[in-house]
């Protein structure tokens, strides 16, 4: 499957039809399903409404935590294993109206609460570049379906780095715009103050094309931003000479990783090579310093806020109005049984963490302090954005981990390097991961995070860097040829 723009040309020149493209995608989806497990549902029938947009007739995949009327939507959890929504998410409706053709609903970490792609109720998603490795999560199947070349783009959600991390591990582009830029109506909430909708694609331009179509004010999402009347695609090639980038020393300083493995050193070296390329392009790039203690607080603050919000958001999963009905003599016992049977152990552990945080005696010490740290971090970033246009950092400290990996990404060494992308969720900043080359035959990613509401500039910067790096359309099957 080609990129959106190449497919557009083929469609416009009658070299293919939307039916051919749908059939090709479905065939490929089935072909790769057993080995890689990208999908919860692969569509049997094509639903197509003709339109005059750039994505008219283009196939795509949608994460299985977006409501799709009449189409199974499970959030990869047993508690929703038979749930058929009765309404459409705004994103899905906009894509339908724009003529895009749904190929399937993709596997996620259960209820989007995880970063490994191993916790969905239908099994683990495998990395297209090496099936013994994870693709990351939680938008695992959405990343894999693009990386496998099944679809040219897909939709995901991102609460901590759930689009941008799997994009890095899969060698594709993953973008979440400013909080509220894309409506969350119909997205199953995980942590409402951090949840974003975003796009996977093979290159920045395709990402911008899709974002242009799905962004915008939505009366059904009171947090959606007013329309800004900027077309992102039209501004991708703007001159970036003199634009200012920064990176945080305490995240990427090689001295901090002296005894780290060869892989981490290679990732960091690649990053510094990219810094030099950015300078050559005309960017000014500065190293800035942030209190390491503050950076180490990102992950715990993220877990505190997200687990607490998740316990509340998922209290509607009772098995009464929808979902498998539990057994019991009264309504409380029925709900208790449904939730006991419906959630996996991992989700229960996250909920227990949320419950612990929300205990009266812990609220001030944990929940409120995490929210205070969030403010300190966001304020610090906004100070930088007064002077700079975007932050660049490696999307991860390594390549996609093996399923049996023993590296503890939560250890002191990796606590910052593996978790810094949650900064963009704290502040709602537009943030994009683009491929930054290969280490040990696996893709790695560069993350670019701009200031709030500067989505167009962030994509413009990413597009220019992508051109210079030359890893556009990094698809496994084509890379091997």
């Amino acid at each position: 499957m080609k990129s959106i723009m190449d497919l557009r040309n083929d469609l416009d020149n009658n070299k293919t039809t939307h039916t051919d493209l749908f059939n090709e995608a479905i065939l490929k989806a089935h072909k790769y399903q057993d080995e890689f497990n990208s999908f919860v549902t692969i569509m049997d029938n094509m639903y197509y409404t003709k339109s005059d947009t750039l994505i008219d007739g283009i196939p795509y995949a949608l994460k299985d935590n977006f409501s799709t009327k009449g189409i199974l939507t499970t959030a990869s959890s047993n508690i929703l294993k038979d749930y058929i929504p009765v309404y459409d998410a705004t994103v899905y409706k906009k894509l339908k109206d724009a003529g895009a053709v749904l190929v399937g609903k993709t596997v996620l970490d259960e209820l989007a609460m995880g970063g490994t792609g191993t916790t969905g109720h239908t099994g683990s998603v495998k990395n297209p570049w090496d099936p013994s490795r994870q693709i990351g999560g939680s938008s695992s199947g959405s990343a894999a379906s693009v990386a496998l070349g099944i679809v040219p783009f897909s939709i995901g959600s991102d609460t901590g780095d759930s689009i941008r991390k799997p994009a890095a591990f899969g060698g594709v582009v993953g973008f979440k715009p400013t909080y509220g830029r894309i409506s969350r109506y119909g997205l199953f909430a995980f942590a409402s103050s951090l949840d974003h909708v975003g796009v996977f694609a093979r290159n920045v331009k395709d990402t911008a094309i899709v974002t242009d179509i799905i962004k915008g004010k939505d009366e059904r999402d009171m947090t959606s931003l007013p329309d800004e009347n900027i077309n992102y695609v039209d501004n991708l090639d703007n001159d970036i000479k003199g634009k200012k980038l920064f990176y945080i020393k305490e995240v990427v300083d090689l001295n901090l990783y002296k005894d780290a493995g060869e892989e981490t050193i290679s990732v960091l070296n690649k990053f510094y090579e990219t810094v030099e390329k950015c300078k050559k392009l005309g960017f000014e790039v500065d190293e800035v310093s942030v209190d390491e203690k503050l950076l180490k607080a990102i992950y715990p603050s993220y877990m505190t806020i997200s687990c607490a919000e998740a316990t509340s958001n998922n209290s509607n999963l009772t098995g009464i109005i929808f979902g498998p009905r539990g057994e019991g003599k009264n309504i409380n016992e029925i709900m208790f049984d449904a939730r006991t049977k419906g959630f996996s152990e991992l989700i229960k552990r996250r909920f227990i963490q949320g419950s612990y945080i929300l205990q009266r005696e812990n609220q001030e010490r944990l929940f409120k302090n995490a929210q205070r740290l969030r403010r300190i971090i966001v304020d610090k970033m906004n100070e930088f954005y007064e002077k700079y246009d975007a932050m660049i950092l490696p999307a991860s400290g390594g390549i996609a981990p093996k399923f049996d990996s023993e590296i503890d990404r939560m250890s002191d060494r990796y606590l910052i390097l593996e978790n810094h992308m949650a900064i963009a969720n704290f502040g709602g900043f537009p943030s994009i991961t683009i491929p930054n080359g290969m280490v040990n035959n696996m893709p790695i990613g560069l993350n670019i995070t701009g200031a709030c509401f500067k989505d167009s500039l962030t994509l413009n910067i990413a597009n220019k860097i992508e051109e210079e790096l030359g890893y556009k359309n990094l698809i496994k099957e084509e890379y091997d040829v």
Partner: protein
Amino acid sequence: MVTKDDLKVYAAKLMFDMDDEGYDRTLKEFETIEKHMEIIGKFDGIENVEPCVFPYVIYHADYREDIANNTLTNEEVLKNAHDTKANQIKVPKVVE
């Protein structure tokens, strides 16, 4: 220090249970969680910072007219319910 009994109380408050091994694993996980949580409390003067509950300040909010719209039909609401009767979701008697 959190105990296994504490964990059972936290789980029960959210209306679910786990097997014993699950609680053991959760307890083990809490060693790391509590270590991470300690980081959160270690900032001087943090009590003077206003908690941040939203990514940015909203200066402008639209309110829609108070007119019912986007409603679901009775049939749609009941579609995913396990047990229904007389256009309502059926559950055991609340008053026994």
